[in-house]
């Protein structure tokens, strides 16, 4: 299945011939795309197009049936989830995925890239560097004054920010966000866009989003998925004017 003749190392992320099937149903079918350094790529597509599955495949949550995912020259399909994270891929889930029973400080601290082995975690010391970094990130995600509250008491939007903050502290080279503004109020949405604009500097970002306004604001390039395949790819203008896209998605 691996296509011949492309030079994957030019890209930060090269997905080639990626296929996954659940009991015969091909959720993602022979998918190939490439993401550059510092590129912001948005994936759009109707429900069931396989958008979330693509992110699952990249971060190792779901194992591919065929195809390759190369990140900075290493093959992600053969690595465990934690190795993928260590390689520099961060992932935010669709629904806010944070630890309700821990404080915001502790939530962020867990993502601090140190003491990730069993022994490391046992001997981990909360030194000044950790505190400074946590506070710095908390500032960015508008939660500085609530550091020692339980995360359970945050609003939905604040939880989304907290998870973004957790990714930020992890400092990944490729950041994957699954519908970061879904379910947010208008004011939260504006703040989130602001937040994203600060954090996407110096890294590549892969975003799934439905909010077209938001997509237009941030996207460098847009990939449209439909039934597990790429329907169209390019700038927002190009995609918008693609008749296939209009038919299955925008005109829907």
């Amino acid at each position, binding site marked *: 299945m691996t296509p011949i003749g492309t030079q994957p190392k030019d890209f930060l992320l090269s997905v080639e011939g990626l296929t996954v099937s659940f009991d015969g149903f091909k959720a993602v079918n022979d998918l190939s795309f490439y993401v550059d350094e510092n590129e912001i790529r948005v994936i759009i597509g109707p429900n069931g197009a396989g958008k979330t599955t693509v992110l699952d495949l990249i*971060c190792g*949550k779901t194992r591919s049936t065929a195809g390759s995912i190369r990140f900075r020259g290493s093959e992600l399909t053969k690595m*465990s*989830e*934690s190795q993928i*994270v*260590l390689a520099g891929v*961060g*992932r935010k*889930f669709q629904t806010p*995925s*944070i*630890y*309700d*029973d*821990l*404080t915001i*400080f*502790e*939530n962020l*601290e*867990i*993502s601090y*890239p140190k*003491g*990730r*082995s*069993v022994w490391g*975690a*046992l*001997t*981990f010391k*909360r030194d000044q560097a950790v505190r400074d970094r946590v506070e710095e990130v908390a500032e960015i995600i508008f939660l500085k004054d609530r*550091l*020692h509250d*339980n995360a359970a008491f945050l609003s939905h939007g604040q939880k989304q920010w907290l*998870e973004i903050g*957790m990714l930020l502290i*992890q400092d990944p080279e490729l950041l994957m966000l699954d519908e970061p503004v879904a379910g947010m109020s208008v004011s939260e949405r504006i703040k989130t866009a602001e937040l994203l604009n600060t954090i996407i500097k110096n890294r590549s970002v892969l975003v799934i989003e439905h909010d077209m306004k938001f997509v237009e604001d941030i996207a460098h390039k847009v990939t449209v998925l439909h039934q597990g395949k790429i329907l169209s790819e390019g700038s927002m203008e190009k995609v918008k004017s693609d008749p296939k896209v209009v038919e299955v998605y925008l005109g829907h």
Partner: protein
Amino acid sequence: MTRAPSFMDRKDLLALAAVAALLLIVFPLALDGFRLNLVGKYLTYAFVAVGLVMCWGYGGILSLGQGLFFGLGGYGMAMYLKLEASSVENTKIQSTPGIPDFMDWNQLTELPWFWHPFHSFPLTLILIVLVPAAFALLIGSAMFKRRVSGVYFAIITQALAAIATILIIGQQGYTGGVNGITDLRTLMGWDIRTDSAKFILYFVNAILLMGVICCALFVRSSKLGRILVAMREKEDRVRFSGYSVANFQIFVFCLGAVFAAIGGAMFTLQVGFMSPSLVGIVPSIEMVIFTAVGGRLSIFGAVYGTLLVNFAKTSLSESFPELWLLGLGGLFIAVVLFFPNGLAGIWRDYVQPSIDRVFRLRSKDPTDPGQNVAKQAASMPAE
């Protein structure tokens, strides 16, 4: 801020002091030798319960096979003591003197290879910790790496406990069979059957238990403890924050196994024998109940839960021998339905608030983040 060991806050320190006072002062003064020895026996189960708090309460891994590890520790100690009791002189009426009596009855004429290390006491102590840890590592690696979830893990560990029992009973020439390893006498020449020895062993046991509690407190207060809480809630988030979730589960399962094994070894020393009836499903589940009654998230609760259930069991069975199962069964159901956080929950919801009211004036700076884990972990609803 009191800067005692950095892993304990003031509350833990107070709780530890309370347990120490109860075990080291109140019980020895209030109870006669017989009851004290009984308490000592119960406390060996508390080792298992503390391990279960870590595994189940914090790690979210319910093992129904802790009896297996309790047994491995207990049998390790029993094998050493049995070899000491089976000197050639003591066993001269046997056809092969110098081997344990049950081997002789089963026509064994030499000591099986796996018994030989148990001639040495230091080696025995090492094996008591190492063998259960190795087993837990093996089971844990096989299962957690494949993401076996709570219920399945519980059933498989339960099956392992059942297999261990059948195996021990079936291989009686090597293990003493259903009777277990009995008639243990001395530890390096020191007669463990006397009342004074029992008294000393009680203290050794109590101090070891407090060591285990400190160890558990340390793990809980480390970042590892917070990762365990995090894992139990959002395993995927932890995984995608760069942690190998399986390794942490294996660690905490091994920790529980080692705690159980130490308890088993102390059981053998205090009770004077080890038998497969402590390995099987029933004791394994009972130990989970001790934990649940104490409060599955409370390390100290485990100790109180164990003591309470066992006191109840002993006194109920003394006064109403034919009815204690009803009481015990009812206790299980009541704890699960109405007090899912066990004694610790009752303490927190009813007793602690009134104490706090009294001491409110002296409340101190609540912002040291290191202290929050315990409180919050204890305040979460079950699962």
